[in-house]
């Protein structure tokens, strides 16, 4: 179904672009463009007036040249402002309108009607993705001829023009998908939290450009600014990012990241969009393992071996930390409703490999994801053995660090899963908050102990947090706190698992009224 025939897109088109509004918007765009042009012209005129007043400092040829350049400078300044304005408007609008889309439909009680139609998840997604920020797309469309004129007058190459629009559109689509993903994730009642998250995401995305000088300069391409700035600011020097050590233009890296990361977001959306909120399952078990592997792969692809990640130990610690974050997110994506867990509990006797079942516990799959992460780390260490000074010790240290982080993540995810079985409202959010409180308490306790004894303080850190895994070299394999910490956390995870199983064995309560039931 072409997008202009997509009913959801047509609905937005009709609601947002009625003739009067469209004409008003177009007129406002033209007026603002004229004002911007006048501003650019005025600024250059003042600058040139100043130059002429101080003509004693300039040679006559230079002055004449500057006069000749004036129209191009004015038009280029105008062109640049228009491009940045379109980038800001479209990406911001796309993210924010999409981030309120599904949660807004849920709040207005119109979502069930859309879900009960024959529109597929893909059609709904496309309709919302391009329909929600339609007014912003229309503004860009109105700006397009003016920008083209400005570009031609400024003698900007068509390549520059096309690359800028490619970045604007691809960035807006990617952020729109991210917005829809957030919107789908948050219930109507958590809309406020969702909007705060959206602000955070926009700022994070914009600030990613600051990573352009890091070991993962390609990550800066997540921000459209990384590709945008070199197009308009010749005075700012931007080195090219690399993919597996090969320099690649910013625009191409941006497109690659938007395409691949966007594809994962689309996959989770397609699997959850038409589902009831409580029955959402963003990723299947295998998809979660695949996603963890993909994220590792992307990180290795963008890696540039230079300071600070220039030795194998810093590299291993960094990758273990990143994998900890990935495993935690994957664990959250694999959480199950109590209903699905009960079904699993009732049928596990008749299922082959029940622990690996789609509705079973998360820990076997987290362990598998960690194993894949470790395997890729080993490959990475081999690939950069010249740069990182590969040492067999790296494999041992890496395996212990992975193990420690894995045990803590399994404990935390099992705790959140247990929280989901309680009658808490927003159990996942509360579970994460409780974990935050636990880690804060652990840090305070360890800090207090450190005041009296630095060694004991380190021991408390190692017992209660994964910090014990990140020792400075030489790695102390015989640290009792390290293994005691692993043992305690594994036992705690097991206790949570048993608590979950005990709760599942408990017969379903007396028939009772449920808020959702009619």
């Amino acid at each position, binding site marked *: 179904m072409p997008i202009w025939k997509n009913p959801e897109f047509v609905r937005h088109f009709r609601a947002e672009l009625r003739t009067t509004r469209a004409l008003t918007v177009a007129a406002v765009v033209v007026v603002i463009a004229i004002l911007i042009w006048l501003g650019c012209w005025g600024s250059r005129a003042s600058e040139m007036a100043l130059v002429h007043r101080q003509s004693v400092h300039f040679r006559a040829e230079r002055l004449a040249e500057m006069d000749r350049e004036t129209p191009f400078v004015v038009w280029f300044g105008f062109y640049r402002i228009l491009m940045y304005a379109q980038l800001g408007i479209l990406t911001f609008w796309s993210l924010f309108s999409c981030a309120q889309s599904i949660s807004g439909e849920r709040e207005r009680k*119109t979502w069930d009607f859309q879900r009960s139609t024959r529109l597929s998840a893909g059609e709904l997604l496309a309709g919302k993705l391009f329909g929600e920020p339609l007014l912003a797309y229309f503004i860009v469309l109105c700006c397009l001829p003016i920008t083209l004129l400005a570009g031609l007058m400024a003698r900007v190459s068509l390549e520059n023009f096309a690359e800028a629009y490619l970045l604007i559109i691809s960035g807006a689509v990617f952020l729109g998908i991210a917005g829809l993903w957030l919107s789908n994730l948050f219930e109507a009642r958590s809309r406020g939290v969702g909007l705060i998250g959206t602000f955070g995401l926009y700022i994070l995305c914009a600030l990613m450009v600051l990573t352009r000088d890091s070991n993962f300069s390609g990550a800066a391409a997540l921000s459209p600014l990384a590709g945008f700035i070199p197009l308009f600011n010749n005075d700012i020097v931007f080195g090219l990012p690399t993919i597996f050590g090969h320099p690649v233009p910013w625009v191409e890296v941006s497109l690659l990241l938007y395409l691949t990361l966007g594809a994962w977001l689309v996959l989770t959306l397609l699997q959850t969009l038409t589902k009831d909120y409580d029955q959402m399952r963003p990723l299947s078990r295998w998809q979660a393992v695949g996603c963890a592997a993909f994220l590792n792969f992307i990180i290795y692809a963008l890696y540039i071996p230079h300071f600070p990640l220039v030795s194998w130990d810093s590299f291993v610690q960094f990758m273990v930390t990143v994998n900890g974050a990935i495993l935690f997110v994957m664990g959250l994506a694999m959480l199950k409703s109590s209903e699905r867990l009960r079904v699993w509990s009732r049928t596990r006797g008749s299922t082959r490999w029940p622990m690996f079942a789609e509705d079973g516990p998360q820990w076997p799959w987290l362990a598998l994801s960690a194993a894949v992460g470790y395997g890729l780390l080993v490959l990475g260490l081999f690939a950069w053995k010249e740069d990182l000074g590969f040492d067999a010790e790296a494999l041992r240290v890496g395996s212990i660090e992975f193990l420690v982080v894995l045990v803590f993540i399994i404990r935390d995810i099992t705790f959140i899963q247990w929280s989901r079985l309680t009658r808490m409202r927003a159990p996942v959010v509360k579970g994460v908050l409780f974990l935050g409180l636990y880690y804060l308490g652990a840090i305070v306790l360890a800090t207090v102990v450190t005041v009296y004894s630095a060694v004991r303080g380190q021991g408390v850190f190692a017992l209660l947090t994964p910090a014990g895994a990140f020792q400075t070299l030489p790695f102390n394999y015989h640290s009792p706190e390290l293994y005691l910490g692993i043992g305690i956390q594994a036992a705690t995870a097991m206790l949570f698992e048993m608590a979950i199983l005990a709760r599942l064995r408990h017969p379903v309560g007396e028939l009772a009224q449920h808020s959702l*039931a009619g």
Partner: protein
Amino acid sequence: MAPVIELTNLRKEFDDLIAVENLTLTISSGEIYGLIGPNGAGKTTTIRMMCGLLDPTQGSVRVAGIDVLGEPEEARKYIGYLSDFFSVYDDLKVWEYLDYFAHAYKMPESEIPARVDEVIAQAGLEVKRDGMIRGLSRGMKQRLGIARAMIHRPKVLVLDEPASGLDPKARIELRNLLRSARDEGATILISSHILTELEGLCTSIGVMEKGRMVRSGRLEEVMSAVTPMRTVRLQWLGEAQAQIQGLLEQLPGAAELKLSEGAGEFFFSGSDDELSQALANLINGGVRIVSFHEVKQTVEEMYMKVSSHEVM
């Protein structure tokens, strides 16, 4: 009549609660089925599972012979759904709203304009066709909601508490709209706890309580199962109380006579023939009968008996 809706061993759990338990229900084509029960009985959950909006924990749902879980998109072709609380897109015009859903249900393009006008007429919204939805009254929006559910000529129309919050006039208009949907050939399942709105509309009825179906069947069958005795009320002129008492006591199937001055009632378990004979006997015996009629039990009374477990 072929079954259009088939629910088999349907069960839905939420956390440690069972919202619907082992529900088996068959509704034949052309019926208007009233699903009644108190808040929390599981009506909405049942309806949402029927429409494919909620996956059951266990059991199956078939609509027009199609497995709703297995082929949800195909099944939606045959289902029109209106939820209990809903809103409409205020920034659209009435015809645009219906046109949107006609396209969303993937109706043939050529049929859509005529169908939109047709349901607008059925809903009595011709005057508002080109008006913005935000200008409609609550009742009009409710009718627009039903028109939306009917737009793709579904075989099954599922309405969850469609009359809640409507004034009496709007309720009458709603009933007329539902009748016109039935005349178009739709099988209607309507859930409500306002029992008077189902009176005279439903052909079958189901009573749900605490997730279970307590009673289900044709309206008259459920009524007679709940109250096997008919209540007959009569009025007369003059001093005939003793005479009537004597005559009725001889009538087979009559029980619990309650007679007072000029009026009375009794329970009767016999046939219509026997009842007409009783009336003839009274008149032939010289009693000046003013009125003699069976008091029809209301759905409300039947529901109260079922839900208070007088009858199980």
